[in-house]
């Protein structure tokens, strides 16, 4: 049974938290803490993703330089952004994320940033999909 990214976004409606490249790491950290999330999407004036700033990026930056708070977001963000679309197959997305070690992917639909999904979201949705299939099979066996 195929499942796509749209299914993951359907129950994840909190808006995507974005930052601008010239925002400070201080502002970015405040956003991460306030929304209790692990990554921010860095966008340009047209709301197009330019990069991802994750907890990891900040940890790495802090290990190099203790005075990171005033640094710009784009000095620490991961620039190579792989984006996904709502109709992408979740299984392929999971594979790409694990192979390339990306924990978060922005979701873009017709040029619009519509969400961000984490590897945890993908794995959880897949697990529920499999559990559902097992549930249906068990029901059929037990009601024969």
């Amino acid at each position: 049974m195929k499942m796509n990214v749209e299914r993951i976004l359907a129950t994840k409606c909190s808006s995507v938290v974005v930052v601008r490249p010239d925002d400070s790491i201080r502002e970015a950290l405040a956003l991460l803490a306030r929304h209790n999330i692990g990554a921010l999407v860095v966008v340009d004036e047209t709301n197009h993703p330019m990069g991802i700033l994750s907890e990891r990026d900040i940890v790495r930056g802090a290990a190099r330089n203790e005075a990171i708070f005033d640094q710009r977001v784009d000095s620490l963000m991961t620039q190579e952004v792989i984006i996904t679309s709502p109709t992408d197959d979740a299984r392929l997305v999971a594979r790409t994320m694990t192979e390339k070690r990306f924990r978060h992917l922005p979701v873009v639909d017709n040029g619009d940033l519509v969400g961000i999904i984490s590897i945890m979201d993908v794995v959880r949705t897949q697990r529920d999909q499999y559990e559902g299939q097992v549930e249906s099979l068990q029901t059929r066996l037990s009601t024969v």
Partner: protein
Amino acid sequence: MAKPGTSACPLRVAIIGAGPAGFYAAEHLFKQDRIIVEIDMFDRLPTPFGLVRNGVAPDHQRIKAVTRIFDRTATNPRFRFFGQVGLGRDITRAQLRDHYHQIIYTTGAPSDRNLGIPGENLKGSYSATDFVAWYNGHPDFRDYEFDLSQKRAAVVGLGNVAVDVIRILSRTPEELAQTDIADHALEQLRQSRVREVYMLGRRGPAQAAFTNPEIKELGRLDDVHVTIPPEEATPDSLSQQALEREDDRVGSKRIEILKEMASRQRAGQSRTIHFRFLVSPVEILGSSGRVRAMRLVKNELYATDMGTLRPRATDRLEELKVGLVFRSIGYKGLPLSDIPFNPKWGVILNEKGRVVEPESRKPVVGEYTAGWIKRGPNGVIGTNKPDALETVSCMLEDLEAGLTLKPSHQGSSDTETLIRRNRPDYFSYADWQRIDEIEREKGLHSGRPRVKFATVEEMAAALGR
């Protein structure tokens, strides 16, 4: 005020929609041994079980057996069913908020997606989900008419609903007469002149959403020959690579099944199912206002950055002569009165089952959702169980944190008074059990699982009202 969930003050929960998601949520709530829960389940139809009764095909009775599990939940003395009580029609959201601590919307996805092509509204072009509801005896669809005087029909889509519609159109009246298909549909299908049914998929055989057992079943129907153009039964090189790379055994098996079918010779069957892959309708052509043909474009597959194979139109067009078209490209959720809705995905705006405000994206205290109206129309019946579990976990967490509604009416008798006033002719679970018994009894006499009542009036009359 004490937290609800005690025997002095039970947690009162309303579930709107008596389909699988609602029943799985109820089951899980009743499993909580540390809290006392009272559940009232509402449905706008007199009968429970949603798509299990009105969606699952009449010749797939084994899938319908899941209702025995739901029945167990319904026997809980703290469970009540209010059938024929519709949200926004017989009870309002405000009234629910004033009678319950928590509300779960499990109303499903009652509409379907359009093709969005010219000619879609011609006579003879129908929604497959309407046809499904009609042949399953859904009371709202009792008076729908489908022109089955045509010889050739096309079903657009490669999902299980498309396969169901094709099977129902292709079975002999004798086969159908052993099922619990609605009597009015059986009568119409007896007269049906449909002999050739085309299944049109925009993607290839390797991407089809139908399952292997369902496709095999099409090859075993009494009077049906299946054809597939050999070049369309063979996956293109991108699909072949994907099957190998992902070690996709189910997909490979499907190709094997289709190739075997493609190689069969006709053995005197009078009906034909034609599989067509990698084609999209671009226009439904009519004459005198009714369907006479479809214009199809041949697709090719390309891979996205993520590796998903998607169809893209080529410049090759063809015309397929058909007098009937059923679109079956997916169910669609509809907004419920003023409950926050996400039109893009066709779901209630929610975060893991908690309904959220459109602006602030903050949870709406006391309101939740589960099933198709929460996650979109996908998965099997069992998928609603983990889905409902996630929602119930949020509800329990919120209960623990004191985040519930504070209804001014606390007693279960208050709700009953309200419903008796708004909808005196509501159906209880006992009423449903009586209807169920009568339907089964009638079935026994004619060798069918049951004979369905297809109107609310007939159901009421059967109860002596």
